């Protein structure tokens, strides 16, 4: 006999992640982008600095005075640098990639510095939001994949409602403006109108490499050229856990050690 539809929600046992209260393997292991390994540039492959930089289709790699940096906000995770120079680049597992400053996405081999505090006005506002938060999403020229990952936050695995996080159609009731896409010219006014309809101060999150830097399709674009962004979430597209990490970072709700 067929199981009644209403009972099905329970049938596969607990599927919802315990993160952030408890660790989650998928959170810890997902490789959002590579980072430099910190190995010295021994030029066995006969690549000079310019050639190393040219490996990357989005210009995320920078070599200066024998130090390699990789801008995770530009990286589209094509993996070419890792394939070509596994000595110099390696995938970094972990979805804790969001940062409150654009520059903090530029990874070198130095141990990660503690995240700087959020802007005071944001921190003040978000403390008032601890119980429930409303997010207004705007697609400003994505390739369509970012929306899938945002919507995934509502599936039973991530179930952000358990954290008091909700999506809203009304900008007037929104606390967070979550933007996907490169910031296409056509979306400039609709985006500005949505922002203007939100009560100040607004927390603005740019999610995905396209929104952070324009990525491969919008070089020199990204949404920070259109409005001030508080939190940047890299990833091509940013996976749901990275996005959730970014939202909790914006809310000052990351567990100690993560923020």
């Amino acid at each position, binding site marked *: 006999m067929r199981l009644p539809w209403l009972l099905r929600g329970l049938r596969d046992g607990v599927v919802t992640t315990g993160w952030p209260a408890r660790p989650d393997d998928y959170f810890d292991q997902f490789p959002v982008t590579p980072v430099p390994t910190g190995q010295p540039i021994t030029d066995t492959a006969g690549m000079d600095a310019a050639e190393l930089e040219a490996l990357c289709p989005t210009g995320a790699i920078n070599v200066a005075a024998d130090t390699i940096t990789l801008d995770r906000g530009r990286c589209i995770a094509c*993996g070419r640098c890792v394939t070509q120079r596994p000595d110099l680049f390696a995938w970094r597992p972990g979805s804790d990639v969001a940062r409150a400053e654009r520059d903090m996405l530029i990874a070198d081999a130095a141990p990660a510095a503690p995240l700087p505090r959020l802007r005071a006005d944001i921190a003040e506002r978000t403390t008032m939001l601890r119980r429930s938060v409303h997010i207004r999403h705007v697609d400003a020229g994505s390739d369509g994949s970012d929306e899938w990952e945002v919507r995934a936050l509502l599936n039973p*695995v991530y179930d952000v409602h358990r954290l008091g996080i909700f999506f809203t159609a009304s900008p007037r009731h929104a606390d967070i403006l979550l933007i996907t896409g490169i910031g296409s010219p056509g979306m400039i006014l609709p985006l500005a109108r949505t922002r203007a309809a939100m009560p100040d101060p607004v927390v603005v999150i740019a999610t995905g490499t396209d929104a952070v830097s324009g990525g491969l399709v919008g070089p020199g674009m990204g949404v920070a050229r259109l409005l001030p962004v508080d939190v940047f979430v890299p990833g091509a597209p940013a996976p749901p856990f990275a996005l959730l990490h970014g939202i909790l970072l914006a809310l000052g709700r990351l567990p100690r050690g993560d923020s």
Partner: protein
Amino acid sequence: MGQVENEQVEHEPAQNERAENQQTGKGQAGRDDTVWCATLAEWHRRVTAACAPPGRLAGLYATEEGGTPELVAIVGRDQGFLVLRAPVGHDLCYDALTPQVPAAFWYERALHDLSGLEPAGHPRLEPLLLPHLDDLGPVRPGSDLPARGHDARLGVEHVGPVDVTGRGVFTLPFGPVRSGVLESLELLLETGGEDILRINLRPHYKHRQIAKRFEQRTIEDAVLVAERVEGVHSVAHALAFVHAVETGTGVQVPAAARLQRVVVAELERIANHLDVVTQLCDCAGLAVGTARFGLHKEEVMRLMSDATGSRFGRGQVVAGGVRAALRVDPALIGRRVRALQARIADDLGALNSSASFLDRLRTTGRLATDLARRHGALGPVGRGSAVEADTRVWRPYDGYRDLTPFVPATSTLTDALGRLRVRETELAHSSDLISEAADQLTQVEPTLRTPVPPADGRYLGVAESAAGEVLYSLSLQGARVVRCFARSASFHNLVLMHNVFHGDVFTDLGFIEASFGLCYAGVAM
């Protein structure tokens, strides 16, 4: 997939034409022909004739690669594509195809926007892919608006013309910012009250100049651009692109890579179909259904990321093969997919016992079979209206040639329910295809990639995305892309949404949109 030879179809070269057979026999099955028409009148006549069913318009673009502007129409036929080319004068004027070939309606508006062509006699030549602005300056084929000063100017909006006028008729704009977490699209509902009289779609908000992003790229980089035309069909776009390269270079893809491509392409299809079912449940307010199918979809995304490192299978498809071996043992992938399909089938059974849900889909968004056929409707939208086209079957590529043939899933219902039926059957097909491909993967040589030599010329590539046929017309010079016309199923199908409101109430909109299952990035380009 049986023995599919490159069947020779009848081809009679007419006078004044230069026929080139671009089929090398090593790329995709099917036979493509190119016909050069000396005059626009001849081109118009031939395109119109070729587009009569069973022919269908599959693509239309302009290019100026050789220094002179030219129009290129791509027509689908039983066994292959017919490419019809003709020179255009420097005034860029020609007689519009749309009056004779209605499927050209959006293509000609896109041509007007992006290449500056003037299709005389077009019924509604308002901008489609660009904002409504008068001062964009001259546009040429292939120019795709390079420099335009400050981009804030492009944010100016105008309300489009209204087709339907009369007492009590008003226009209701929805979007471009949608109420749910959806891609931006503006829908102007021209209505006389509760019934929708007409819907006007405006996708331009998301326009990203994607055609320009291909140009001057290496093949390796251009595949990455193809993956971003429609991110939710990354694998299908990458495949269509590399098929064009492989046809052009005559490269043989190793068996292991052909089978792997099927595995990732079918995982992508399962994820997309589950996304549609999830959205339909959400529209109907079925919280349990939304949760269940959302959960299944997440499982597919994780299987994809476990196997390829990317939740969207990005970077896996490369010209000549695949980048790397799957990171999960194929036998395990087969087992996980079969177990998942059993749960999906069970939940679909429960969903189908909800009479109120089925009622919401039945007769909603009907697309007449005749119209679907004349338009050449693609994917589940076409198949849900009894149009049999499935690229995996009529022009099998990669591992589909090596696997057990299947009959395309079709439905004669023609409504949102018909499209759901098609997707239900395809979910089962995908699971079978993955299982079989995974089995065979254990028995073939583990070679994953054949080196790709440089090539000059213009080549077609196709692949079946979850939303239907993706078509690329790619011009290569050496190892670089000169011009790339990428046509998504979404672009071809979305215009049909104009035709599927039959006095339905506003609440049908969500069901119709979800049942079409299109990606607007691939429409706005």
